[in-house]
């Protein structure tokens, strides 16, 4: 709660500071605000917040971990994307504070205890993104992406709201605990509740970008600026998946027998459709978008089991996925891949070993090769689910083989000895070094958290 307020206020301050047109100052404020909120979340249990009597937001250890991840990713993205935002010196602070506002939404979405906060969080998360997708105003693609995202998003919101309304109708409450109680005690209107669950699933599948509600994904990712795309793939997805997990594996867990079937189908479709469509992509962001669909499929495995460890597994997986995505996007920005071509990565790894190393690590982690975090994430998720969903796990492994091919192609490309790019040396700012370094650490050692 405190962190949320700190972030919001930081955003506000930076909006005003932005008028001074001193981007580094803005960056400093934002970074320190994020760090502060990060620390606040870290020490959440150690002090009593003055807001603690308001229980609309509540953070236990799991939620803290996830919110810290969200803050951390945002920080990385702010640092990594600064170079990019700085180009438009007029609005640097606007962009950055929009990201922060979106982060507020993400934190609401992680900490919600009732559907009010859930809905508001979702909207706060989304609306700045609708805007951010379209900030390349001259670019037709950017506008189109923004448009598509907005309309599909609003449509999904309407579906979600309808589901929430039915849910309320069925259980007469917006509070998760009460709803859970009602479900447990059986005092609810049955068809309405079940339909409500399905509507909400649909909305969630849209938000996390799973089949068959994934259509916005590739188009929007491709049209969006790199850094916004990374934000969507990491923070937005993280918050949405976690909320999904919380609602379904938590509140609705007693109906899991009902909804897992629907989810299974969505997972299978996502796993395969994502990687399959990505196979022959030439556009880098589009490829990432498709692969993110499949990765979502993996992430949704966390919902299939109600065991307490599934959140931890999801965390590891998302850390791996987020770090890899951020690293890749940062690299794409470093090589100034304006045309958004996969071919632009040719030979950069050989030319610049550091980039190459980070790139290989990210891609390998995405394809689930041990001992990187990606492997452990997948491994934990799958082994949680194996008892009840053996076939699903096997299908997931099959799809991960397809995925491996996809990533391997990029690995090979980036390690080629010859290059298409004539640039002698890529300018890497210190911030980008930091981002890449942190990502690599996350990829290599993120899984160690399970040992602790």
């Amino acid at each position: 709660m405190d962190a949320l307020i700190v972030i919001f206020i930081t955003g506000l301050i930076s909006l005003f500071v932005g008028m001074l047109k001193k981007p580094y100052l803005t960056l400093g404020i934002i970074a320190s605000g994020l760090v502060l909120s990060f620390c606040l979340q870290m020490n959440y249990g150690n002090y009593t917040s003055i807001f603690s009597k308001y229980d609309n937001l509540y953070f236990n250890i799991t939620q803290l971990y996830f919110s810290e991840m969200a803050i951390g990713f945002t920080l990385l993205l702010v640092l990594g994307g600064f170079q990019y935002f700085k180009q438009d010196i007029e609005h640097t602070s606007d962009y950055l504070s929009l990201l922060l506002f979106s982060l507020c939404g993400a934190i609401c979405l992680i900490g919600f205890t009732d559907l009010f906060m859930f809905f508001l969080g979702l909207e706060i998360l989304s609306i700045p993104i609708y805007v951010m997708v379209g900030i390349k105003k001259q670019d037709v693609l950017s506008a189109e992406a923004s448009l598509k995202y907005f309309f599909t998003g609003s449509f999904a919101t309407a579906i979600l709201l309808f589901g929430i309304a039915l849910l309320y109708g069925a259980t007469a409450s917006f509070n998760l605990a009460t709803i859970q109680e009602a479900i447990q005690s059986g005092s609810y209107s049955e068809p309405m509740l079940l339909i409500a669950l399905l509507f909400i699933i649909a909305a969630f599948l849209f938000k996390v970008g799973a089949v068959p509600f994934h259509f916005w994904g590739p188009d929007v990712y491709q049209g969006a600026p790199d850094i916004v795309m990374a934000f969507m793939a990491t923070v937005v997805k993280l918050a949405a998946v976690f909320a999904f997990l919380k609602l379904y594996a938590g509140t609705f867990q007693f109906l899991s027998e009902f909804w897992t079937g629907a989810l299974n189908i969505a997972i299978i479709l996502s796993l395969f459709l994502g990687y399959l469509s990505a196979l022959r992509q030439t556009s880098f962001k589009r490829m990432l978008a498709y692969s993110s669909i499949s990765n979502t499929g993996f992430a949704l495995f966390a919902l299939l089991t109600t065991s307490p460890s599934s959140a931890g597994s999801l965390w590891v997986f998302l850390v791996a996925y987020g770090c890899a995505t951020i690293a890749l996007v940062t690299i794409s920005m470093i090589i100034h891949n304006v045309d958004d071509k996969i071919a632009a990565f040719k030979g950069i790894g050989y030319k610049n070993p550091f980039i190459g190393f980070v790139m290989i690590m990210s891609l390998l982690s995405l394809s689930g090769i041990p001992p990187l975090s990606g492997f452990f994430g997948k491994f934990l998720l799958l082994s949680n689910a194996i008892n009840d969903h053996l076939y699903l796990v096997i299908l997931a492994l099959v799809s991960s083989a397809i995925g491996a091919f996809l990533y391997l192609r990029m690995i090979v490309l980036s390690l080629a000895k010859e290059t298409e790019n004539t640039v002698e040396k890529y300018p890497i700012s210190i911030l980008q070094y930091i981002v890449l370094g942190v990502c690599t650490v996350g990829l290599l050692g993120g899984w160690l958290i399970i040992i602790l």
Partner: protein
Amino acid sequence: MTIDSIVLILIALPLIGALVNGTIGKKLPNIVVGTIATSVMLASFICAVLVFSQFQKTQLIHLFSLLKLDGFQLNARFQIDALSIWMTMIVTGIGTLIHLFSMGYMSHDKGYYKFFTYLNLFIFAMLLLVLGSNYFVLFFGWEGVGICSYLLIGFHFSDLEKGISNSIAARKAFIMNRIGDAGLLFGLFLILAQFGTLEYLDLARLTGPGHGVAQTMLIGITLCLFLAATGKSAQIPLFTWLPDAMAGPTPVSALIHAATMVTAGIYLVVRSNFLFELAPFTKDIILYIGLATSLVAAFIALRQNDIKKVLAYSTVSQLGLMFVALGMGAYTVAIFHVTTHAFFKALLFLGSGSVIHAMSDEQDIRKMGGLAKKLPITHATFLIGTLAISGFPLLSGFYSKDEILGHALAANPLLYGILMVSVAMTSIYMFRMYFLVFFGSFRGGEKAASHLHESPLIMTLPLMILAILSVFGGILNLPGLFLHSGAHWLNDFLSANTAGLNLLLAEHLAASTTLILMFVASAMTLLILIWAYINYAKKQKLALADEELHGWQLWSNKKLYIDELYALVFVKPIEFIGTLFYSNFDIKVLAKGVYSFAQLFSKLGGVTRKWQNGVLSSYLFWMLIGLISLISYYFIKLQVWNF
């Protein structure tokens, strides 16, 4: 010195010789290399004689345990008994002589040291083969001699003209031997499965009276062993390698492909006599195969024009005779023939080597003639060899062949008749060759004529020694008819000291019958001699050129087309299958299958990508469809799951 250590020295000496020559031989002068090799052989022979003289009863020399697995143990262990010591003497004795001969014969060769290394190695392997106390050690030696044979056949692998064909011949020999080896291996496995041991003595004990082993098992074992024997001893169906193996230097042909290695098959059967005796069926097979081989090889030899090829087929034919003896259960007779055959065949080969040496590596008998004057010693010794092999009275071959014939008559007159045909053909082709080579006028042209010379003493000395042995070798096992006190010495020697060999009834026939047989055989040989002399020496009826042949002569000359048949039946199909598998199955089915499986995903990706058509309305539409399907899911779920 105890017998144990002598035997070990005996075995080790050739190995040491090989190691010394192999490592530093290249830097030593040829004469030193040759001396080393020959002297270790000589020493080894002396050891063998020592062992022979001190030998009293069967003895085992245990070295170490080679392999200990659950259920069985394989030992490096040697067995000294009459059979092994006798074979050792033959191997080392003939070996020494041939080493000596090689010192002269190979003197101009660049690979002099290599040659002697291989020869010594061969002897070592051969000694392992004959001295081992179990089939495993025998198998070691068995494979070892195969390799040495391969190396020596292909010795002149880099020859400009014949290099490739030499090495192909070597490969053929090796592969055919390998087939036999596989048979031996199966035999071993069957024995192991049945008896749990490979030791001869244990096996002999276990197959004693009341053994209770199934007949089929025994037949299986013995057939496997016999398959091995056909490989090594060049019997039908695996005999075609031996004539090709003549690509090796002539001393090699003499040592390996006439005197020692090829008799390993005989040795194996004799060694396993206790098994074969229990499997009459196999014995019959051996008999028929031996007979057939003998006839076929003799027939082919009739119209061969390569001096070494004739001898090679003659070897095959003689080996067939030995197998006939084995098939009849006349083990000692077979060994006797092995012994005499070793003498006169080594002599013949060395003689032919001497001829070839003189002819500057020309081997076609159509280009020779009238060499008797130029090569007197060779001629004389060659004559003795020819007479011996033809069964000229009182020479060694006469006795050993006669024993076989005698047994054949006792077994079945028809068998005797067929054998007589084979023997007659032997005489015919041997005399044909002899007369063509040494009589008449020289047909090799001026240039070759000027080079003709008698070989040096180092080459003729072994010839002479072998000639003496060929003449008097028969004394070893005289029929009772001649010298009662010394009769059947070898027979007794072997039977007494080798477990199981005394199964054979020594003398089947009455003395008079024996006498008649001898007479018939002698008469036939003499007749053929005269006929051949008239035909080839007097009338100068020369061998025909290849293209003039027709009828049976052509078939004989073309080796009954067996090589072609094998190529058609085995080699071509295998190569065809190999190519077929590779180009059609491996590439087109498997590799392509995997590839198209991967392609399938790519194609599927193409399909799923079509879905993403970029139109917002369609996205929304599909979302609605998704929603509808979810609600339908509700209905379906409600049907199967009521709550």
